[in-house]
């Protein structure tokens, strides 16, 4: 008897389910960053707004990367419904702390997917997810550096103005290689 389930897709049901959850999470991240960009625009933090617009785009690309993978493997990729997007934030620094928290939540979720893929001997998904594991190192680094600027520069006087200007310059990478 033919194995019709396997012929349809290489993804096990559980893997397909958690990948679709991750698709939703990346889309949610994208929406949150967009709201943060708007908040920064409204409050005169022009450079930070630009930074969050860029982040928002990146998150959409993460979503698409996962979406294409599920679809290409014969799975059912689900176009996500996004709700619960915060539209207002307590302050400049809070925006960045929330961004870091969001990235940490994403890292944890990525790790869980890799763990499950290994448990189920799905080495293709394991390897596919390694790109995200690496990406999260960078994402967390940048988010953490942004918060550090608040301590290094200080928010008093022209502090916030200086922090805003410094935000887009944060990059992750080997200093010597740059």
């Amino acid at each position, binding site marked *: *008897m*033919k*194995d*019709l*389930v396997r*012929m349809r897709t290489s993804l096990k049901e559980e893997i397909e389910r958690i990948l679709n959850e991750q698709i939703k999470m990346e889309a949610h991240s994208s929406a949150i960053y967009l709201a943060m960009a708007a908040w920064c625009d409204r409050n005169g933090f022009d450079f930070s707004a630009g930074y969050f617009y860029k982040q928002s785009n990146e998150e959409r690309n993460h979503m698409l990367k996962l979406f294409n993978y599920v679809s290409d493997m014969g799975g*059912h990729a689900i176009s996500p419904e996004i709700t619960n997007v915060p539209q207002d934030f307590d302050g400049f620094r809070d925006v960045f702390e929330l961004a870091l928290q969001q990235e940490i939540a994403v890292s944890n979720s990525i790790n869980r997917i890799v763990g499950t893929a290994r448990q189920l001997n799905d080495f293709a998904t394991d390897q596919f997810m390694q790109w995200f594991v690496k990406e999260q190192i960078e994402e967390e680094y940048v988010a953490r550096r942004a918060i550090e600027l608040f301590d290094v520069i200080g928010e008093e006087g022209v502090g916030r103005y200086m922090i805003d200007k410094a935000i887009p310059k944060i990059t992750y990478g080997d200093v010597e290689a740059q």
Partner: protein
Amino acid sequence: MSNTHRLTELFANTKGTTYQCDTTNRIIIQFGETRVSLRISDFLTFKKRVDSVDIHTMIFNTDDAYDVEVIDAPRTGHLFVLGLCDLIALRDLLAGTRFVLDLNTLLNERLYSTLVF
């Protein structure tokens, strides 16, 4: 066995039987008088629809609208109109079928993979 109609019975209960056809790669559901043939992805969608019906509401809501459930079998043009007992029987039939399909995957993975040539 005729090569044009390779049917394997997957699962049966008091109300129906399911088969796999290796010629058309389809799952055939015989339920009461109804017979539909579904592609595997449509079968899984159909199973999800049947599983997502809120049986609790069907039992405890006295409104007529909750006496039957209408479920569309994807790309067959067929609607299943199900009372509570039928729904439970269909759910059981599809769950048993899914189990056999998974068992077959397992067998293919563990036993037959070396036999493919």
